[in-house]
C-alpha cells in the first residue's frame, strides 16, 4: 500500500463519492422505474423533488471526477519517483495486475461521465424534462462502471509494493516484449499515419456533410488511432528518440507537460464529436458541438504534426 498525500486525496474522495453515488443509484433506480411526467400523483411529485437532489449529487461527483483524471495521471507520475525502476506513470500502471484495466476503465468512464453531464444539461433546458428517465437510467448503468473504477483504483494503490522492482516504460512499450501492445508498435508507421490522417479527413467530410452518427463513430475511431499513433509515432518526435514509445513521459516537466495539453485536446474534441451524434439537442447546440469537436481535434492534429515537422526542418531527416 502506498500512501502519499495524492493517493490519500484520491482514496478519501473515492470513499465520499462511493457513499453519495450509492444513494444516488438507489434514487435513480426509483426515478427510472416510476417516472411519469404526466402524472399528478404524490409519488411523481416526490420523484420530481428527489430527481433534483439526485441529479445535483451526480452532477457534482462527475464534475469533480472529469478533471480528477488528470490528477490521477499526475499522481502516477509522482509515485514513479519513489518506485524502483519506474521512470514515469507507465511503470506504476504496470506495477500491478490492475493498472492497465484501471486506465482503460478511467478513459471509458471519462466519456461516460461527460455524456451524462451533457444529457443532464440538455434535460434542464426543457420545462418537461424530456431526458430525465434516460439520464437516470443511464446512471444506473454508469454507477457500476464508476464503482468498478473506485474498487480497482483502491486495489491498485493497495497492491503497489515499494520493495518490488518494476519495469520502466522503455521495457513495457518495447516492440520486442511479445505483448499485445508490442504487436501494435510493430505495425507499419506509414499504415498507422495513413489511418490517422484518413480518419481525420473523414471527420472533416462528415463535419461538412453534417452526418451525425457517422461523425460520432468516426470520433470513436479517431480516439483509438490517435492514442496508437501518439505512442508509436508522434511520441518519438516529442522525445526525439526513435525507440521511446511511452504515453506518460511527455506528461513530465522535461517535455513541458505537453501530454496534458494533448490528452485534453483529444478527449475534449472526440467527446464533442460523440456528443454531436448521440446527445439529443437543438440544431443550434448540435452545430456548436460539431464546431467544438472539429476545433479541438484540429488543434490536436496540428500539434502532433508539428513535432515531426519541426524535427525534419531542424535535422533534415526523419526518425
Amino acid at each position, binding site marked *: 500500500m502506498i500512501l502519499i498525500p495524492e493517493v490519500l486525496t484520491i482514496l478519501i474522495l473515492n470513499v465520499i463519492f462511493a457513499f453519495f453515488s450509492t444513494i444516488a443509484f438507489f434514487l435513480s433506480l426509483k426515478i427510472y422505474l416510476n417516472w411519469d*411526467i404526466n402524472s*399528478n*400523483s*404524490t409519488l411523481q*411529485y416526490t420523484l420530481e423533488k428527489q430527481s*433534483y437532489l439526485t441529479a445535483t449529487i451526480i452532477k457534482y461527483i462527475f464534475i469533480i471526477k472529469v478533471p480528477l483524471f488528470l490528477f490521477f495521471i499526475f499522481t502516477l507520475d509522482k509515485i514513479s519517483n519513489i518506485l524502483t525502476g519506474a521512470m514515469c506513470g507507465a511503470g506504476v500502471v504496470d506495477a500491478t495486475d490492475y493498472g492497465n484495466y484501471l486506465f482503460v476503465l478511467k478513459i471509458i468512464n471519462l466519456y461516460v461521465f461527460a455524456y451524462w453531464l451533457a444529457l443532464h444539461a440538455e434535460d434542464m433546458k426543457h*420545462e*418537461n424534462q424530456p431526458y430525465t428517465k434516460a439520464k437516470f437510467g443511464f446512471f444506473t448503468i454508469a454507477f457500476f462502471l464508476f464503482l468498478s473504477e473506485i474498487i480497482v483504483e483502491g486495489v491498485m494503490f493497495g497492491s503497489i509494493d515499494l520493495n518490488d522492482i518494476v519495469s520502466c516504460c522503455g521495457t513495457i512499450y518495447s516492440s520486442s516484449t511479445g505483448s499485445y501492445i508490442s504487436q501494435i508498435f510493430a505495425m507499419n508507421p506509414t499504415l498507422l499515419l495513413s489511418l490517422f490522417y484518413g480518419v481525420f479527413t473523414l471527420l472533416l467530410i462528415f463535419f461538412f456533410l453534417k452526418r451525425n452518427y457517422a461523425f460520432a463513430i468516426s470520433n470513436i475511431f479517431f480516439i483509438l488511432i490517435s492514442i496508437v499513433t501518439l505512442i508509436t509515432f508522434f511520441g518519438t518526435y516529442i522525445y526525439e528518440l526513435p525507440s521511446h514509445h511511452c504515453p506518460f513521459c511527455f506528461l513530465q516537466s522535461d517535455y513541458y507537460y505537453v501530454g496534458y495539453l494533448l490528452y485534453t485536446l483529444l478527449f475534449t474534441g472526440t467527446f464533442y464529436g460523440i456528443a454531436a451524434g448521440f446527445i439529443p439537442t437543438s440544431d443550434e447546440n448540435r452545430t456548436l458541438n460539431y464546431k467544438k469537436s472539429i476545433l479541438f481535434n484540429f488543434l490536436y492534429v496540428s500539434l502532433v504534426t508539428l513535432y515531426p515537422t519541426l524535427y525534419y526542418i531542424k535535422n533534415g531527416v526523419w526518425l
Partner: protein
Amino acid sequence: MIELKNITKMYDLNKTDQVVALKDINLSINEGELIILKGASGSGKSTILSLIAALNKPTSGEVIVDGKKISKLPDNFASTYRRDNIGFIFQKYNLIADISVKENILLPLIPLNPNADELDEKLNLVMEKFKISHKKETLVKNLSGGEQQRVAIARANVNSPKIIIADEPTANLDEKLSLHFIEILKELKTAGKTIVVATHDPLFFDLDFVDREIEVSNGTI
C-alpha cells in the same frame, strides 16, 4: 385563467407525522377576476397562494395557469414563471430595510438586465401610480407602515405581472391605510389584473368590485 385541480398539500412535521393543509380542492379563477380567500389562520389560504405562485408544489393534483402546468415546472422554470407573471404582496412586505425605495422596487427587474432608460421609465410609472415618488431615495427602514405597503405594491407591479397575489396585505395596517389599499386593489382590478387576496380582514368582505369570496376552512373550500 388559473385552475387548481384535485389539489392536496401535506407538510411534513417530522419523519412520521404530516399535517394536511389542503384536501382535494378544485378552484378556477378567470382572467381579470378579483378573488378573496377568507378563513381563519391555518385554514390553507396561504398554501393556495404559494401554489398559484409556484413557490410550492402540491402533494398531488395540478395547478394550471394559462394552459401551462406550473405545478410541474422545475425550479429554474418556476422562477422565470414567477418573474414574468406574478406580483406578490406579503403580509410583512418583505422589503429590504437598508436599501432605498427605488432599489427595492427595481429588484424584480434585475434578472432581466434592462437598460437604464427602461428602468427609469418603469420605476417612475409605478412610483407615480402608487404615490411614493417623493420617497424615491429614502431608506425603507425610515418609512411608515403605509408607505412600506405602497412600496411593496409598487415592487409587485413593476414587471407588469398578469397576476397579483396578496397574503394578508392589511394585517399590519390601520383601518385608514387598509381602506387605501382596497382602493389600490380596485385600480389594479380595473387595469385588468387577476388578483387573489388571502385575508381574514372583514374590510374586504362584501366589496362591490370583488368577483368572488371563497371560504377556506380546514384545507377545503
